[in-house]
């Protein structure tokens, strides 16, 4: 899984420019970054600094204007959209700020979603879903809909969804941004556990310095430039 220099994630001279109504907005300028397997990395910076963009590039849901993004041995820019989707399903677990659970599906069905893309049988899928829900402490709520869960519980379901397919990399975009202090603490504890006990590599974007303390490494992104 590691690439030439042993890094799980390798970014080299990455630029990203957005085009908004014919105005060019440079969001990332000359980013270089290496993340090792098993690391817990926090990315901080003011709003508009391009943190989410960087995360999107690493997760393969966006492509750089210039430069190379290598994750888990694949150079993402070379992959076709359909292959990229398949790659993403295998390697990335994404956690959103607003949880983004599908409201018409139960907690179980939400967590099951990534597994639908695999060839596992229904029984196999059920086993893993319950396991993931168990990890986040919510097996009892499997049949509930998102609207019946609190904010903290929704995020935990979202985390279960992110890990259920055993991805290479967990990517979290402001995971505690919408939660109160107590729930935020619970989520961070959970993430730390996933990193320490299950050896999951985690990339977390946050503007909360307290949240960043859970990580091993903190990077700062300001005006598109990365500083450790």
């Amino acid at each position, binding site marked *: 899984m590691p690439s030439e220099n042993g890094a799980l994630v390798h970014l080299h001279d990455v630029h990203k420019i957005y085009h908004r109504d014919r105005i060019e907005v440079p969001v990332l300028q000359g980013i270089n970054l290496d993340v090792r397997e098993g690391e817990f990395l926090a990315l901080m910076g003011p709003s508009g600094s391009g943190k989410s963009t960087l995360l999107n590039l690493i997760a393969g849901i966006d492509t750089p204007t210039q430069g190379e993004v290598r994750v888990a041995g694949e150079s993402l820019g070379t992959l076709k959209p359909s292959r990229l989707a398949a790659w*993403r399903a295998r390697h990335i677990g*994404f956690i959103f700020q607003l949880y983004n659970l599908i409201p*018409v599906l139960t907690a179980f069905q939400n967590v099951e979603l990534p597994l639908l893309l695999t060839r596992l049988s229904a029984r196999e899928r059920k086993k893993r879903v319950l396991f993931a829900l168990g990890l986040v402490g919510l097996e009892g709520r499997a049949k509930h809909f998102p609207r019946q869960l609190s904010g903290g519980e929704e995020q935990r379901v979202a985390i279960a969804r992110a890990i259920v397919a055993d991805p290479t990399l967990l990517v979290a975009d402001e995971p505690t941004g919408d939660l109160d202090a107590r729930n935020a603490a619970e989520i961070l504890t959970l993430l730390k556990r996933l990193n320490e006990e299950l050896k999951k590599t985690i990339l977390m974007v946050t503007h909360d310095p307290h949240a960043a303390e859970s990580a091993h490494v903190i990077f700062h992104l300001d005006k598109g430039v990365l500083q450790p």
Partner: protein
Amino acid sequence: MKYLGLIFANLMRSKRRTFLTVFSIAIALFLFCTLRTVITSFEASLRASQATRLVVRHAASLVFPLPLAYRERLSRVPGVTGISYGNWFGGFYQDPKNQFAQFAMDVPTFLDLFPEVILPAGQAEAFRSERTACIIGAALARKYGWKLGDQIPIMGTIFPGEWRFVVRGIYTGQTKDVDENTLFFHWDYLNESLPEGRKSLVGIYWLRIASPDLAASVSGRVDALFENSPQPTKTETEKAFQAGFISMIGNVQLLLTIIGSAIVFAIMLVTINTMMMAARERTTEIAVLKTLGFSDGLILRLVGGEALFLSLLGGGLGCGLAALVFRESDFTGGGFFPNFRVLPETVLLGLVLAALMGLLSGVAPAVQAARLQVASALRRVA
């Protein structure tokens, strides 16, 4: 397959919207099946036509009769294995609005030449042996509540006066397409009641031929036989004869097809609109699914599949309802549609149409969803 759960859950997102959409599609298909059945019921007579029967009538028009004397010569035409004859009576029961077919038939040969008219044991004999007897179709009996032994008064229009017949038989059709709304009585009874100048005149002769491929040659021979007589004939297969009637009804088929198409098209427009509006609410979700690794192609199929599912549900409902409603009813639209029932082919056509509607209405939202750029979609929200 495994994505059915996703599709179904999504349709339950707004039960009201799903209900309204399914029902509007059901309505469209119900109407389509009904209109199509108007057309196919006209054609029932075509389907019931016997390939081994020819119809001989006056060349000018049905209005003119043929002499009874023709019978002898007709039966001697090579290829003819049976002959019967009859006159259209054209009366009504009590009220001119109560229209149904009455035929004065040559009873000795009638049942032989028309095997699709099925009478229970004994009734055929009763019919044959009594001069004023008549047999009626089962549907006709149901409609007016007539039973064996009832006396039916018919007011004649072509043959004026009140005529009375006794029901000695109730027939059923061999197939569902055979008309069960006719009354048959004795030709001899009609003939003997007519004044001298109008006796021995036949409306139509029916010929049975040995095999269907003899139709063209026998028809030609018969018409050649009487070509230069004062009453020339026109002989054709029963199917052609019925088709001639249908074509006289003119553009009705075209008109009904136009209306039917307009209906389906209108509802489809509305459905497309609904699907597109529904899709707009789901951009974030689609983005999330793509983030999880659902490919563009899969998303296309899922959204398209939803539209298809809805349409087939609505289509099945509409077509099924039409088939049910018109199966058990003896609806004849005032006597115009003796055989109004929804054919299996019509239901199938309706379902295909529904599927097409589903695919077409799902295309736009499906393509839109497939093309969604994840990054920009997510950016819009957070």
